Structures are given as structure tokens and as C-alpha cells.
């Protein structure tokens, strides 16, 4: 359910911001004044000296805030402002919202910056439930979590306000796509970047999980802050120049599969994708979706670099050292289109075998080794190839003379085989190995027994020692989630069983749990789905992280590679082993031409929208317009039907427990949606259609429909305007934009809205912002197909009951986004609260509680907007 409470918060925020940052006490000044102040502040920040100072101060502030509570100065100001402005205030906020919407899309220079920023923030917050106010009797007092956060953000923003801001915005959006994992990361990142203020709430909620992390995070944050400051300064200068182009460059070192090193200069804030494309280009690799870049985290654990996120924020303090490797092992390598792809897969497997990660028998070691020799040395030459010629190769973890002799003996039998054929034979045998493509993770079962979780193309395998003791194929799994250091899978009930069961595993730590979860999400999507799930941009409720695999699925990549039409690229086969031994000769390639690389990357990606947008990501200037549109649509999704009846207040004492982070992945459940359901969905109210239309890439607001639909409520009108805005105002470079990696089609959700009148809000002129309470029940189902029926029907909700048996838990995520628009900086703070629980949970109550708590934490802040998404899982009718 999406409840958007808008105006009040905005107002408050604005005033707050002003006072804090610039210490301009202009509480009374309504939107416009605020804007002016903001603009003034921003420019100031833009100027070299001031910005730095500001940023520093802001940072300083933020830290204390994090430690304690919101800043003292800001609260009073905010209150005063609200009061003074009265109705006009309210109006402005809405406008602001609209603006924000517009801002989200293309930046609208015209509109008051502050408002926009606030609004934008709010919008982003939508995902979370952030009830605005007290006005709502229902859920209990809706706290202004967002607002508080926003305020903080604003301060920070002011400080930094520049290119960075823009980037951040993008990031936030991207992150939102990426699900749970990302969210968490986001939090951290945001915290870092922002300052400490945001951190607190988030942490509190996360408590249980992230105690350790927190400390880490804090330190990291601090560091990052410093960095950011520096960057900001630089950025500021850049801004002054009005160009966002200049960026700090960093050299990345990538270990390729043949053991050679590839070095490449990237902008410090470049996303993983940029580097990945650089590497693929260097390798001349087109079928790249099977591959990825990994790095070692502080605990020496291998982590995959998320292409959609900034590299810097992922590697944290680690070095810019990466490894290019196979991420998704194709079950049938013969279906790969190009030999070069197979060659790279061979190199990976040779590593896997030599390291023991891919166990095989003596005979298999010998056989695979012999194909390796054939591929790399050609036919056996008795004169040239004496026994010692193979001692440079490593065929097995423990290589014996006997094995080498066997390899040579078999090598002789391959006479006449071309390198490509030898590679193909190698793969034909390797793919049958039981551990081929199985990503192992240490864990314990419910009884504390050491086991291994193996994630592979077909599902999840459970090993005890070397024995497979259980297996859960993807179709058997309804849901995967992690909480703290536990990883859960919910199993579809068998024929004879009535209820699904949940199996839990204990991972060494929270990060490990998250890692398994993420790998599962990725593997499931890649191998099982036709197309990736759209990260619910809308931020539909969302219990949990929004992480989704955003790349192409195997089906898509196969389709794409079937279109590859180029002469087989020349490449030289070399044994990784030998190369690594002679590092001197290792080819080192440096790519420093930033722009070229970019272009190339973009070109390659042609087929996939997301990729394209991603490739552009490094450049700030490339604001994704399409994305913005998408965002807009998202906003629009918060369609309002006005129900006069607010949600009934429930006095149940459901309490939001802050400790748990619960992440869940709903897609799994949805993959089996049958047509019947889709049909049902088609009956969706016209709202859904509207939403859909908005979601389509083209920004066509269809105001008329909206008008019909949303009569009377000012808010509605405003929104419409906002939507229209993008069209009118072409996006500017430098504006914050949301990454448009989203494909045009968003399938999703249905919004049911019970809404307190927006109009009423206007009339309510108290400090307390009138609460527009919109409850949107969002059903997100992922249809593998791209058809537009994204809206679920209420009927579908039935399934919701089956959803979770787990205890109520809450996750809070804070997003702070700073954007620079036409010299103005915007700050958006989005706080997302995810409440997970049984279907019978009183969400309103829980939400209210959460908000209340947030408010208490940040007394000086106000809630601008609250959006509640209630996500109910669909039942799978079919088996």
C-alpha cells in the first residue's frame, strides 16, 4: 500500500535545511524562500571555499547526529516555518512533490530546488512505509522518519551539492533495483556518504545483525566521508566550472583468466559495469553474461562486483584489484556461440580443477589435461614434446608423474584435433563433473552440523562432506531469504503435504548469509527465468532488499549471441599456469582512454537496455532520460483512489522489532503464475492501465484519465503536473537522473488505494501536516513474460496468507540522494521501513509504530511524505 503524505514534511524540511546549512533562518519563508535559500546555498557550496567548509561542518554535524539525535537548531526552525506558512505551505509541498517527480525525471531547473529535492526524496522513500503524520488516525501516528532523515540529508547535501549528488541519486535508484543486498549496502553507503545521521536509525533497526558491521561501517563511513569531502571539493570546483566531467581516476587491476593482468583507469565513481565492459572489450568477448568481476573483501571472501553499483562503494577499503571469472557456468557449453567464450570457460575450469575446487578423478584429470595440451600445444610432437614439456602445466591439485604420463599418453591420441575441438571436448567432459558450476558456501544445518550449500543452475544442493544429502530444485523453492546470519528457503509443499516448510541454515556471519542469498537470486534469475525480474522500481513494499539480478538471463544471452555475426576473433591460447609462472612476460594492457571505452561499451550492449544505460553510468552528464520516465511512472503508480475511510486504527500491540533484517525474494514464488491469474489481473482497474502507461518508457501522462480518476484531490493534480513536467523540460545534464536501466515494461503490481483525502490536508493547517493516507496494496508478481498485465487483483491476495510464518521484523533503509540541478542542489532522504511478518500482521499498526519511533529519534524533523506499499505474495496455483 502506498501512503503518500506529502506536504508537511516538505515544508519542514526545507526550513530545517536552510537554518542548518546556511544558518539562514528563514523558516517563515515558504517554499519559494526556501528554494531561494537552497539555491543560494548551493551556489555557495559550488564555489570552492564555501562548499568545503559547509561540507565539513555538515559532516561534523552528521557525526554527532549519528551518535546522538537530530540537530537542535533545525527542529525549531522547521516548526516555525510550518506554522507560518499555513495553507500556502501545504500547497507548496505538493508542488514540491510534483517538482520532485519532475526532478526525478529530468531535472527541472525552474522549479524550486528545495522542494524538488524533498519531494524526490520522498518519492524514493515510497518503498518504505513512511507515514507522514499524526493526522492519520489509523495506523497510529505516522512518524516523519523520512523527514528527519531528509533534513539531515539536506544539510549534507548542501555541503556537497554537486556532481556527487547527482551520482548519488543515480545510485540510489540503481540500488533500489538491486534488492535486499543492495539496500543494505546502500544504507551503509549512504550513511557513509551522508554522514552519520542516517546511520543511526538504520542501525538501530538492524541492530542484531549488524553490530559488527556497524563498527565497520562507521569507520568506513568516516573514511568515506573524508574522501567524499575531498571529492566534493573537487566536484565543487568542477561545478564552478559548470562541467561535471572531471573525475578522479583510479587504476584498476584485473587478473584475467590466463593469469595476465589488465590495468585500466576508471573514474573513481565508476560503476562495476564500466570496468567489466573494459575487460570484455580487452578480451574481445561478446558472450559476456556468463562472466563477472570479483574481488576479495576484508575477510578474504570472494564477492561479485555488482555492475550497477559504484565500484568504490563495493570494494570499500580493499584494493582496486579484481579477478575476471566465470560467474554462471553454462550447463551446455556447446551452445555457446563463440570459441573464444569456450576458451575462456576452459581457462576458468582449468583453474577450478588445479585449485581443487572442481574435484575429479585421476582419469578425468588425465583426460582433461590431455585436451588442454592439444588445445594449447597442438599435436603431440615426440621430438619437441618430451616428458618435461608438460611440467609447466598443472592438471590437478596434486600432480604426479603418473598423471603426467597419462596425460601425455592421451595427448598423443588427440592428433589432428584443432584447438577449438580440444576445448569443446574438454568442456564436454568437464560439464559432467558433479561439481561443475556449483558455488559452495560453508554453513551449518539447524542442528549445528557442518554442511555446504551449493548453488547451481538447477537449484540448491546440500552437502555434508562430499555427500549430497539434499537438493532443492528451483521449482521446489518458494522463497529464499536471509536474516542475520541465517539463510532460509521455503519449500513448496509436496503432493501429499499441505503446508510449505521452511528450511534454515546458519551461515558464518551476516555477510555470508547475504552472499548466499544473492548468489541464489542471481542463479535463479539467470538460469530459470526468461528475463530478469524488474526490480520493482516502484518500490513496492518489498519486504526486504531490492536486489535483483539485473543482467541478461541465459535465455536472453543465448538469443543475443545467436545474433553475433562476426568472423571468429583471433585469440591466442596460453596456459594460465604457464603465464602466471612467467609474470614478466605477462601482457599488461592499459586502457586510459575513458571516452573511447565508454563508447565501445555502449555499442556492445546494444541488445539490452539495461546494459546500455549502465554503460553510460560513469558519465554524470549522461542523465538517463528514459529512466527518469520510468521513475515518473513509478510515482504515478501511487495512484490514488480516495477513500474517505482511513485505515481503521488497530490497537494491537504488534511491535516492530528493530533487530531483524529480513530479506526476501518474492520472485521465486511468482515464476509459476499461471494464465488464469494473469487473466484475473487483466480485470484490473483502469488504474493499473494508467500505471502501465506511465511505466512505459514514453512519458505520456494521460492527464485526462488521471483527472477522471483522481477528482478533487489537489495532490493528484499536482502529481499530474509533475508528470507533465518532464516532457516540458528537457533533462539537463547534471540533473540527477535515475538510471533507466529498467526495461520499458514493468510488470507488477496493483494498487488498491484507500485514501484519506488529500484535499483535507490542505485545509489542515496545523503544524501537523495533514496526513494523506493512501494505502496501496501492491502485488508484485513477476511474470516471466513481458506482457503488461502487471497488476494483481485483490483476489490474488489470498496467497498472502501463506506467505510467512516468521516473526515480525523490520528493516529500515535510508537513502540520501543529493542532486545538482542547474546550480541547485537537491537532497533527498528516503527512509524505507520494511516490515515483514505473517499475513495477519497489522501493517498499519506496525507502520505507525515504526514511524513513531523514527519520529522520536528525530524530533526535529517532519515527515513529508509517506508511502506504504503492502506487498502480498501471490499464491502459486499451479504446481
Amino acid at each position, binding site marked *: 500500500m502506498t501512503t503518500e503524505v506529502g506536504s508537511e514534511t516538505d515544508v519542514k524540511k526545507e526550513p530545517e535545511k536552510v537554518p542548518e546549512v546556511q544558518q539562514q533562518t528563514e523558516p517563515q519563508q515558504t517554499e519559494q524562500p526556501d528554494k531561494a535559500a537552497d539555491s543560494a546555498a548551493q551556489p555557495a557550496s559550488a564555489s570552492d571555499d564555501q562548499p568545503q567548509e559547509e561540507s565539513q561542518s555538515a559532516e561534523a554535524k552528521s557525526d554527532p547526529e549519528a551518535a546522538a539525535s537530530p540537530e537542535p537548531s533545525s527542529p525549531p526552525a522547521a516548526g516555525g516555518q510550518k506554522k507560518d506558512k499555513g495553507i500556502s505551505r501545504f500547497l507548496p509541498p505538493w508542488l514540491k512533490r510534483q517538482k520532485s517527480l519532475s526532478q526525478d525525471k529530468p531535472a527541472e531547473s525552474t522549479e524550486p530546488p528545495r522542494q524538488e529535492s524533498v519531494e524526490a526524496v520522498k518519492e524514493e522513500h515510497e518503498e518504505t512505509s513512511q507515514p507522514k503524520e499524526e493526522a492519520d488516525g489509523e495506523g497510529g501516528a505516522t512518524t516523519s522518519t523520512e523527514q528527519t532523515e531528509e533534513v539531515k540529508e539536506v544539510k549534507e547535501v548542501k555541503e556537497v551539492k554537486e556532481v556527487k549528488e547527482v551520482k548519488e541519486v543515480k545510485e540510489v535508484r540503481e540500488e533500489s533495483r538491486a534488492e535486499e543486498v543492495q539496500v543494505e549496502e546502500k544504507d551503509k553507503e549512504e550513511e557513509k556518504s551522508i554522514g552519520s545521521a542516517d546511520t543511526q536509525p538504520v542501525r538501530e533497526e538492524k541492530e542484531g545483525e549488524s553490530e559488527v558491521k556497524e563498527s565497520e561501517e562507521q569507520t568506513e563511513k568516516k573514511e568515506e566521508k573524508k574522501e567524499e569531502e575531498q571529492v566534493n571539493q573537487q566536484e565543487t570546483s568542477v561545478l564552478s566550472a559548470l562541467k561535471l566531467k572531471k573525475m578522479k581516476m583510479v587504476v584498476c587491476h584485473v587478473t584475467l583468466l590466463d593469469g595476465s593482468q589488465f590495468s585500466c583507469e576508471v573514474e573513481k565513481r565508476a560503476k562495476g559495469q564500466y570496468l567489466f565492459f573494459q575487460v570484455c572489450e580487452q578480451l574481445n568477448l561478446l558472450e559476456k553474461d556468463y562472466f563477472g568481476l570479483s574481488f576479495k573483501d576484508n575477510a578474504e571472501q570472494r564477492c561479485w562486483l555488482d555492475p550497477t553499483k559504484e565500484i568504490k562503494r563495493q570494494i570499500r577499503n580493499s584494493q582496486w584489484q579484481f579477478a575476471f571469472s566465470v560467474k554462471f557456468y553454462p550447463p551446455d557449453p556447446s551452445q555457446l556461440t563463440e570459441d573464444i567464450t569456450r576458451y575462456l570457460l576452459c581457462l576458468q575450469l582449468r583453474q577450478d580443477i588445479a585449485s581443487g575446487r572442481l574435484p575429479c578423478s*585421476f582419469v578425468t584429470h588425465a583426460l582433461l589435461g590431455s585436451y588442454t595440451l592439444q588445445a594449447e600445444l597442438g599435436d603431440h610432437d615426440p621430438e619437441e614434446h618430451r616428458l618435461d614439456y608438460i611440467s609447466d602445466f598443472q592438471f590437478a591439485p596434486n600432480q604426479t608423474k603418473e598423471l603426467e604420463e597419462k596425460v601425455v599418453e592421451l595427448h598423443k591420441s588427440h592428433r589432428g584435433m584443432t584447438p577449438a575441438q580440444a576445448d569443446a571436448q574438454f568442456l564436454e567432459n568437464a560439464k*559432467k563433473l*558433479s561439481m561443475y558450476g556449483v558455488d559452495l558456501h560453508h554453513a551449518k544445518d539447524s542442528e549445528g552440523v557442518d554442511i555446504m550449500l551449493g548453488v547451481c543452475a538447477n537449484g540448491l544442493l546440500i552437502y*555434508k562432506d*562430499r555427500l549430497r544429502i539434499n537438493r532443492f530444485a528451483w521449482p521446489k523453492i518458494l522463497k529464499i531469504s536471509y536474516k542475520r546470519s541465517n539463510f532460509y528457503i521455503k519449500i513448496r509443499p509436496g503432493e501429499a503435504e499441505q503446508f510449505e516448510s521452511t528450511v534454515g541454515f546458519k551461515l558464518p556471519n551476516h555477510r555470508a548469509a547475504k552472499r548466499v542469498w544473492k548468489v541464489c537470486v542471481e542463479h535463479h534469475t539467470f538460469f530459470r527465468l526468461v528475463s530478469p525480474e524488474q526490480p520493482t522500481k516502484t518500490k513496492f513494499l518489498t519486504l526486504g532488499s531490492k536486489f535483483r539480478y539485473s543482467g541478461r538471463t541465459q535465455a536472453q544471452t543465448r538469443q543475443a549471441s545467436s545474433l553475433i555475426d562476426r568472423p571468429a576473433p583471433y585469440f591466442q591460447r596460453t596456459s594460465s599456469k604457464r603465464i602466471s609462472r612467467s609474470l614478466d612476460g605477462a601482457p599488461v594492457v592499459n586502457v586510459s582512454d575513458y571516452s573511447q571505452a565508454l563508447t565501445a561499451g555502449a555499442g556492445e550492449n546494444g541488445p539490452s537496455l539495461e546494459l546500455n544505460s549502465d554503460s553510460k553510468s560513469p558519465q554524470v552528464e549522461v542523465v538517463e532520460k528514459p529512466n527518469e520516465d520510468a521513475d515518473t511512472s513509478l510515482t504515478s503508480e501511487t495512484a490514488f483512489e480516495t477513500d474517505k475511510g482511513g485505515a481503521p486504527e488497530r490497537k494491537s500491540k504488534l511491535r516492530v522489532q528493530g533487530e531483524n533484517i529480513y530479506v526476501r525474494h518474492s520472485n521465486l514464488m511468482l515464476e509459476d503464475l499461471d494464465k488464469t491469474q494473469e487473466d484475473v489481473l487483466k480485470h484490473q482497474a483502469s488504474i493499473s492501465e494508467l500505471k502501465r502507461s506511465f511505466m512505459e518508457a514514453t512519458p505520456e501522462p494521460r492527464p485526462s484519465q488521471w483527472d477522471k480518476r483522481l477528482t478533487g484531490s489537489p495532490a493528484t493534480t499536482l502529481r499530474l503536473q509533475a508528470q507533465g513536467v518532464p516532457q516540458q523540460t528537457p533533462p539537463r545534464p547534471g540533473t540527477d537522473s535515475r538510471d533507466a536501466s529498467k526495461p520499458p515494461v514493468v510488470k507488477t503490481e496493483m494498487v488498491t488505494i484507500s485514501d484519506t483525502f488529500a484535499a483535507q490536508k490542505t485545509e489542515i493547517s496545523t503544524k501537523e501536516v495533514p496526513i494523506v493516507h493512501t494505502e496501496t496494496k501492491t502485488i508484485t508478481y513477476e511474470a516471466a513474460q513481458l506482457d503488461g498485465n502487471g497488476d494483481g487483483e485483490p483476489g490474488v491476495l489470498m496467497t498472502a496468507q501463506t506467505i510467512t510464518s516468521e516473526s515480525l521484523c523490520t528493516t529500515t533503509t535510508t537513502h540520501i540522494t543529493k542532486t545538482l540541478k542547474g546550480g541547485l542542489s537537491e537532497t533527498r532522504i528516503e527512509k524505507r521501513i520494511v516490515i515483514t511478518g505473517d499475513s495477519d500482521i497489522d501493517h498499519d499498526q506496525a507502520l505507525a509504530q515504526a514511524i513513531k519511533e523514527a519520529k522520536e529519534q528525530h524530533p526535529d524533523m517532519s515527515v513529508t511524505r509517506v508511502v506504504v506499499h503492502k506487498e502480498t505474495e501471490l499464491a502459486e496455483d499451479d504446481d
Partner: protein
Amino acid sequence: MAGLMSGFGSFTHAVVRAVPQSLAKEALRTGSQEVDLLKVREEYDEYVSVLKHRLGLEVVELPADDALPDSVFVEDVAVVCGDTALITRPGAESRRKETEAMKTALTELGLNIVEMTDESATLDGGDVLFTGREFFVGLSKRTNQRGAEILADVFKDYAVSTVPVQDRLHLKTVCSMAAPGLIAIGSSEPAQKVLKIMQQMSDHKYDKLTVPDDYAANCIYMNLPGKGDVLLHCTPEEFPESAKVFEKLKDHMLIPVNNQEKAKVDGGLTCLSVLINKKNNI
């Protein structure tokens, strides 16, 4: 060149062991039926004759040993896959010495011998089902987890999944391979339970051939040059209904083999031999 996992069912050699005098009275059995030693010997001779003359395998016959009443069931003491032989540690203490002669014979055949020396491990070959793509190991009274682990360690190329076996002696008491990708399975509840587990644990799809009698599900599949699919299965006299099921396998060379008397001491068709493929070994 033989690739990994190619040539399922292709065999060149068989190791058997002559029937000891002590079988009739001392062999372990879950029932309490009287065993007619003469009949056992008749059946055994017929069995060996089929392998040797009908199918043309090289048959290595180990000498009978009266000190080892169960030694005719050689399957339990060795698991051979490819050119590697795992000499097991049988779950029944009285059978541990049966491995010696087997080890010698397999060594002479040029196989790589791995012995299960871990004293905490037990494994009966009758609990090991090799499908051509993976192993299933029944966890029974005769086979424990450790035994299965060792097997998994020996045959690293293959997935080894464990299957709890209840109310039956061995995993292969209720099932066996009737063709590549075809599992013959009994229709009793324990048998069906076993099948279900195996299906869940496997990445591969198996068809099933359900026979009314659990014992009849124990058959021997081979793929021999010049003969194609060969199936040794129960006789109509012993299990008429189950025999009819096998008779539906039109493409197989069907060879009913009488096993009535040995069944009294829980001996199935597979129990009587260790099959080896030497030609295709690398």
C-alpha cells in the same frame, strides 16, 4: 576415446565366487527359510553360464571358501566404476574377509584399487546404485555415512547422494538400473519412498519401471557389443507379474535368470557378480 561417463552398461569382465558349503546354514538372512544348497548351486551355474556363454564376458571365478558363507555375494565387497575399484568394508563383520580374494582378483585385472580402511566406515556394494551419471548410496544397516563419504571421495567425478533405506537389507534390494536413465523399482512403500528421494536428489531425470515385487526390481542391465541392451531379470516362475513388466521392454535382450533359492538369503541377481569394463578404460 572414452569420455567421462560414457558407455554405461558396457562390460567385459565379471567376477563371481563359487558357492560355499556353509551357505545353506550359515549365510546371513533376514528370513528363516531353509536353503537347498543344490538348488543354489544350480542357479549359480546357470548365472555364470549366461555371463560366460550367452553374453561372452570374461568370467573370473573366485574359489569358494567355507569360512565365508556369504561370499557368493561378491557385489558387496567391491564397487567398480571405470578403472577404479573400491574395496569395501562390509557392514557385517563376518564378511570382512571376503574382500581379500576380491582385491587380489581386481588387482590382477589391472584396476586401481582403493581400500576402505577407515574402521568407522561400513559399506556394502548392495547399497550402491550407479546410474551412469551419479551414485546413490543407501544408508542401511550395512552401510553408514562414513562409508558413503569414502565412496564419494573415490569417485570424485560423480555426485554421490545418500538415500535412507528402511525395512530392507540394501538399497538395491528394491531397485536397480534397467536401462540408461531407467530405474527398476519395487512397488512397496519403502521402495517408492526410496525412489522419491532419489528423484529429488538428482539433477537428472530418470524414468521408472515399477514392478510389483521388490525383489524383482533387482536386475542387471548391460550394453554389449553385438547384443545391444541386455537385461537379466527374474523368471516368470518366481515373479510372474513382475516378469510381465520386464517383457514389455521390447528393445532389450531379455534373459530370465532363476534366483529363487538365493533370494532366501537375500541374494539378488546383482549380488552375484562384480562387473568390469576394461576395454573402455583409458
